[in-house]
């Protein structure tokens, strides 16, 4: 394999999908995935991410475009010839087979020698720490254990690619976090390539190498979790990932990627311009609640806004403060629950400090 092939091990080339011959569910999907990469398709339900996964697995046909796996087009290949492991949201374990038989199934289909099957099944049972459970049926396992079996079953035949369709959706929060670690551990250990579909952003952020944010059949941004969070490409990504304050205003001018924005209150702030449009166009400035400060520290804060305190919510490790701009726009700030957490009562005036690099101006759609 050439180095070039390794960085686009899997390539979606102008893939489109229509179910009703009228409208496109996936519009011109282009993506390169490197070997061993953990890529997440993140988006609200109905955004087309599962459709992409199903086209990759071969359960849905591709309306136009090509999917290339390791340089070979697989667009017209039957699902059972693609050698792709798949983990389903509801596990899809075969209820009439034991755990060991479930794991052995893909190997048996491949007509592997019996001794080898037994050995490989044992190895994978051990890998998911269920080596005592081989004789049980799926119904006798807990949700987390079933998910681990489903994972092992998708990996045991060494597929060229593993697809996961919201695999943790049916688990409770604590188990979900455990399983996130488990999947990451297995991914690090075995180095398989993953396309992971989820609508849970925190799951996507903690696990992925790269995240493709999907909306309306289009990839809005495909970047590392950090970049996605810190430098959202547009207002949808900014709004979809994490919490946001959206402050309306008008762009006055843009110089070297820094926009000067006049807010509805008349204050002027500076913000980074992602796609903010030219002068005199309406925009929103997006600021994350944890990037809003009330007590200026050592940093240099370019922006200062005056607000009125309305309410606060005690969350535990932090406190969520609600402020109001004079024009009524709500501003949320998150402060750590430590000794400097401000004590405010309703109606108090306060000043909030924000750095320019934490403000993003997006044009209003």
């Amino acid at each position, binding site marked *: 394999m050439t180095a070039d092939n390794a960085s686009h091990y899997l390539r979606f080339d102008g893939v489109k999908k229509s179910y009703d011959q009228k409208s496109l569910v996936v519009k011109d999907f282009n993506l390169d995935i490197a070997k061993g990469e953990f890529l997440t398709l993140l988006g609200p339900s109905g955004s087309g991410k599962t459709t992409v996964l199903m086209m990759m*697995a*071969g*359960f849905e046909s591709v309306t136009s475009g090509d999917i290339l796996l390791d340089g070979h087009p697989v667009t017209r290949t039957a*699902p*059972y*010839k*693609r*050698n*792709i*492991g*798949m983990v*389903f949201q*509801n596990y*899809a374990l*075969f*209820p*009439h087979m034991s755990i060991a038989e479930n794991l052995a*199934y*893909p190997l048996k*289909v*491949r007509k592997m020698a019996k001794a080898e099957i037994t050995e490989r099944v044992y190895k994978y049972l051990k890998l998911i720490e269920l080596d005592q459970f081989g004789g049980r049926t799926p119904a006798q396992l807990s949700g987390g254990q079933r998910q681990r079996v489903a994972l092992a*079953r*998708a990996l045991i*035949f060494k597929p060229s690619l593993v*697809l996961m369709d919201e695999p943790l959706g049916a688990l409770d929060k604590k188990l979900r976090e455990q399983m996130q670690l488990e999947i990451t551990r297995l991914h690090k250990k075995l180095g398989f390539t993953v396309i992971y579909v989820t609508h849970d952003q925190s799951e996507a952020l903690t696990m992925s190498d790269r995240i493709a944010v999907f909306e309306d059949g289009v990839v809005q941004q495909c970047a590392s979790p950090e970049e996605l969070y810190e430098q959202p490409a547009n207002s949808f990504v900014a709004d979809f990932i994490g919490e946001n304050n959206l402050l309306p205003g008008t762009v006055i001018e843009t110089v070297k990627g820094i926009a000067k924005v006049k807010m509805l209150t008349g204050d002027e702030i500076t913000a980074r311009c992602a796609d903010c449009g030219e002068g005199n166009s309406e925009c929103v400035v997006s600021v994350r609640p944890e990037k809003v400060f009330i007590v200026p520290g050592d940093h240099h804060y370019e922006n200062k806004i005056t607000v009125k305190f309305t309410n606060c919510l005690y969350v535990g490790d932090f406190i969520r403060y609600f402020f109001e701009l004079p024009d009524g726009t709500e501003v949320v700030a998150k402060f750590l629950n430590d000794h400097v957490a401000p004590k405010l009562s309703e109606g108090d005036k306060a000043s909030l400090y924000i750095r320019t690099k934490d403000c993003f101006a997006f044009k209003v759609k």
Partner: protein
Amino acid sequence: MTPLTQINAEITTHPAGDLLTSEEVSLARRELRRKKLIALALVIPLLIFLFFTFVAPIGTMLYRSVYNPTVAELIPQTLSSLESWDGQGMPDKAVMSQMAADMKRLANLRKSGKLAESINRYLPGTSSVIKSTARKLRRKDDQKIISQGAEFLLAANDKWSQPEIWQALIKAGKVYTDGYFLTALDLERNDAGDIQQRTSTQIYIKLYAKTLRMALIITFMCLLLGYPLAYYLANAPSKTANMLMILVLLPFWTSLLVRTTAWIAMLQTNGVINSLLTSLHVISSPLEMLYTEFSTIIAMTHILLPFMILPLYSVMKGIDPSLMRAAMSMGAKPPSAFISVYFPNTLPGLSAGALLVFIISVGYYITPALVGGTDGQMISNIIAFHMQQSNNWGLAAALGSLLLVLILTLYWVYDRFVGASNIKLG
């Protein structure tokens, strides 16, 4: 004991606070009893209804297969005097005179026909002997019968001088008999009292075998037609599925008689199928389809099809569609994925449907009676014949009991090998 295990031991033994006081125990019991009583009160009307409409009639019917009091009630004194007879040669004159007296009494009560019919079952040809003798004895004087009853009998008919008729009397006079069951199994007792194959006609075993064979064919046909349809229904979009489901259920809601009669119209010599085939010049003379085994099987398959489709459908509906996808993603071709993954998961519905269709068709009556002719008769038709025409309720009861035993045995076998808990009806 290490400190740790000590702690564990303390944790596992209940501290006093966890135990209920005797007052609390009795309160909890009373609560439980109250709940049970309410549950019982709710089902009691149904239980009473079931007892009078189901348990009691069937119980008495089954009892009739071994209980045969008719003759014993008609001629009790003759039977008690016959007890002294050793069964060889002829009985005493006193016994014969007693018989004559009993017959005269019956003749005056107009019950000699009943006696004749009962004895005739044990010794064919006796019916007329008893009836004519009784007629002659009716006019004789009571005093004379006591003294010369034997002579009157012998004079009335030669048969009274043969031991067979007296042996038949003894056989018929037994209150509890295994005779009906032996007949139902094509067996009989020879003169020495041993059980042997019936020498005359052997029809019942053959009929049971034929019934089972037909039920199997019907079950298989229902499976063949029902499985693909249930599969299609379970995987179709709900709008189509609901529409088709109504089509499946429509015959279910139509009267059984109407459906069966419709088959008569279809299959008869000048019926729809024959006229169609003739007009298309496929056949030159009409086919004989009605009143055959073929017509019974066709009509019953049609009638019982919903019983196969409904459990299959409900089980298939519950099968996660991603199972097949998972199997295919792991490299199984669709046919092999179907056989190794989908099919085993439909087995609960399949066995429920097959068991339902089989058991219902084994005991089916109306359809074979209407379209079966003589060729398509099943065991239930013979039972009905003995109930309605030959008035041999004992034999009908014995045949019915055997049918019940047969079905229970089959169910037991099924439970042993497949497991009844696998059945899923809906």
